[in-house]
């Protein structure tokens, strides 16, 4: 009976991500991608998860890491912490060494468990910003710029490319939620330091109607607006901004602004809008070329071909590229079997990893799980998001003040 179950488990592993025959089932490394496919994060999950699975498939097609292949455990949490924890417990029993919830409420609820169970939780572009403090959150890895870093970078872009911040009026227009309010302390601190006027404007969730908010924004006469929303509210924000006379070039957005949003606004109308970019888009990168050749062309892709190379797909690819790199280092340095703790230590040894040019160089350490807070600004050119800066980071001193303040609160049980 036990043998039968083991056989079934092996078959399931082969079916899940593509078993190449290079490794035995016991050597499979399990990553649990327990995400919200049906509720709030649906605007990103499909593409993001598809990118993650396609990347793992690519690694498997290329023989894995010294024969160790990867299996993605996929489950829907519906953005509900209870379902997320249930899925997490099951994945942990199945041997997962890494978990990615792509949901702030679920990942926040799971923090104490992953710390206790010593399982790596990646919180790419979501979750707790203070988890960048690796000493307080040893098993949690934001891996990319937190919302604080994104706000600091966008402000710095205006400072350096928009004629300086001093004397400017900046409107922060956000969805009325903790996510929308998160960058406010950093922007306030920057307003004080740089001498610009900051005003915040909230709109109700989910953001399908924002006209009253924008009537107020227009009367503030902002030089720039920084949009802090996600999903369906984002194109509404851009349309309202344009309708209220704000030039597209002066509209900047948090990372959650993708090709679909630009198309909803209107591809021509959105031309000039800028956004924070964490990972390059398109397929002109070696990893993406190999995904096309070894995964998509042979028909092994995890989803629609047209998603390959989109913003959220590529973020998914990059998230797995960093995680697999951590696993590679861990196996080289600490040997098999790969455990959560070994994976953590492997990830903390990642240095200047840029996924073959797809993302800014990421360096993780015992102290810094954010990876430096790098990103760049890209601009919608009518058909695609084109970068207008190199990768850079900004005002990390202010960002780390916030990280340390909140991390201290976590340590003290606040």
């Amino acid at each position, binding site marked *: 009976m036990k043998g039968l179950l083991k056989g079934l488990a092996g078959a399931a592993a082969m079916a899940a991500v593509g078993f190449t025959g290079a490794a035995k089932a016991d050597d499979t490394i399990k990553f649990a991608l327990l995400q919200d*496919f*049906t*509720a709030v994060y*649906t*605007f*990103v*999950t*499909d*593409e993001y998860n598809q990118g993650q699975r396609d990347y793992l498939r690519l690694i498997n097609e290329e023989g894995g890491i010294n024969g160790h292949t990867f299996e993605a455990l996929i489950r829907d949490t519906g953005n509900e912490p209870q379902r997320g924890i249930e899925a997490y417990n099951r994945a942990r029993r199945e041997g997962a060494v890494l978990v990615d919830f792509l949901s702030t409420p679920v990942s926040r609820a799971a923090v104490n468990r992953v710390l206790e169970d010593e399982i790596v939780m990646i919180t790419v572009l979501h979750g707790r910003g203070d988890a960048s403090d690796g000493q307080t959150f040893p098993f949690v890895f934001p891996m990319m710029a937190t919302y604080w870093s994104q706000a600091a970078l966008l402000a710095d872009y205006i400072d350096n490319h928009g004629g300086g911040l001093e004397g400017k009026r900046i409107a922060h227009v956000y969805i*009325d939620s903790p996510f929308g309010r998160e960058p406010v302390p950093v922007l306030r601190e920057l307003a004080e330091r740089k001498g610009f006027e900051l005003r*915040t*404007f*909230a*709109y*109700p*969730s*989910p*953001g*399908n*109607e924002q*006209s*009253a*908010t924008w*009537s*107020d924004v*227009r*009367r503030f006469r902002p030089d720039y607006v920084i949009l802090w929303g996600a*999903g*369906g*509210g984002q*194109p*509404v924000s851009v*349309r309202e901004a*344009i*309708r*209220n006379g704000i030039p597209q070039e002066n509209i900047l957005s948090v990372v959650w602004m*993708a090709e*679909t*949003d630009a*198309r*909803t606004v*209107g591809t021509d*109308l959105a031309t000039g809008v800028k956004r924070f970019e964490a990972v390059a888009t398109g397929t002109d990168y070696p990893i993406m070329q190999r995904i096309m050749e070894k995964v998509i062309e042979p028909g092994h892709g995890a989803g*629609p071909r047209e*998603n390959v190379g989109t913003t*959220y797909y590529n973020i998914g690819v990059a998230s797995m590229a960093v995680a697999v790199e951590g696993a590679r280092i861990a196996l080289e340095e600490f040997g098999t079997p790969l455990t959560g703790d070994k994976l953590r230590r492997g990830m903390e040894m990642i240095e200047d990893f840029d996924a073959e040019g797809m993302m800014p160089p990421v360096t993780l350490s015992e102290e810094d799980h954010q990876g430096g807070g790098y990103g760049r600004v890209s601009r919608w050119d009518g058909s695609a998001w084109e970068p207008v800066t190199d990768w850079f980071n900004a005002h990390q001193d202010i960002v780390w003040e916030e990280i340390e303040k909140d991390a201290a609160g976590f340590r003290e049980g606040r």
Partner: protein
Amino acid sequence: MDFSYFFELLINGALTGLMYSLVALGIVLIYKSAGVPNLAQGAMVMISAYVIWMFTSMVGLPVYVSIAVAVVVMFLFGLLAERLLLRKMVGQPIIMIVMLTLGLEIFLRGLGPGFLGAAPKQISLGIDMMPIIVGDVFINREYLIGGAIAVTMIALSLLFFRTRLGTKLRAVSDDHVSSWSVGISVERAIGISWGIAGVSAVAAGALWGSVQGVDWTLSMLLFPAVAVVILGGLDSIYGVLVGGLIVGILGSVIPGYVDPLVGGGTRDVVTSLIILLTIIFRPHGMFGREDIERV
């Protein structure tokens, strides 16, 4: 006081409210003929928008042809909902029928994104996005057209209930047994009312879908629509018009002045208060019929 700001909030709020009325109209149409508060109307709006997108993007039809096709599809959907779901509930307590519509709402909300992908889709109606500017007042052109369509739909609904078929539907709403006894096909009448609600969902889905894109959040239009029907009266088409205007205006003007003071987010509070206060002080709404039963 900045009067232009006030008027802008007032006008755009009224037009937004009329756009909510399009969603609310479906709820009233079903209640008025079947006596069932349909909590799946938000999801029907979402599905309508998905159907329009599907015929535009996947089949390649012009958007207005796709809307016409969606009208047929959603009318048939309404008939099917009655045949497969509602008819089986005859004789069951009303609360179970309400729960059935809630179940349908959840099912549909998963169905569209599940089959067609959860990423937002686009519908372009070709409406010029630039506002109409009167003095310092910016009027949202999309909402203006949406409001005009809402008023037209409401007027057509009023006329419909004066037709022979509409009269039958009103009779069915009053009393199923009596309607049966005089030869009215109650099942057919209820099916037609669901079909017409499907048609009004298409109008709402097309307009809201073009404004915000097509995704599951369209189903959340149910919340303001419920406020509209509770305020206006569940069985009143006039109520949809007046309720929509009031919900829209209060939901625009009050947050416009209060949000900057409290740091945002009061519109949902306003909508909730409208629901609570109406239920407490005038449970049948402004224009709804108050049924008094002798016991």
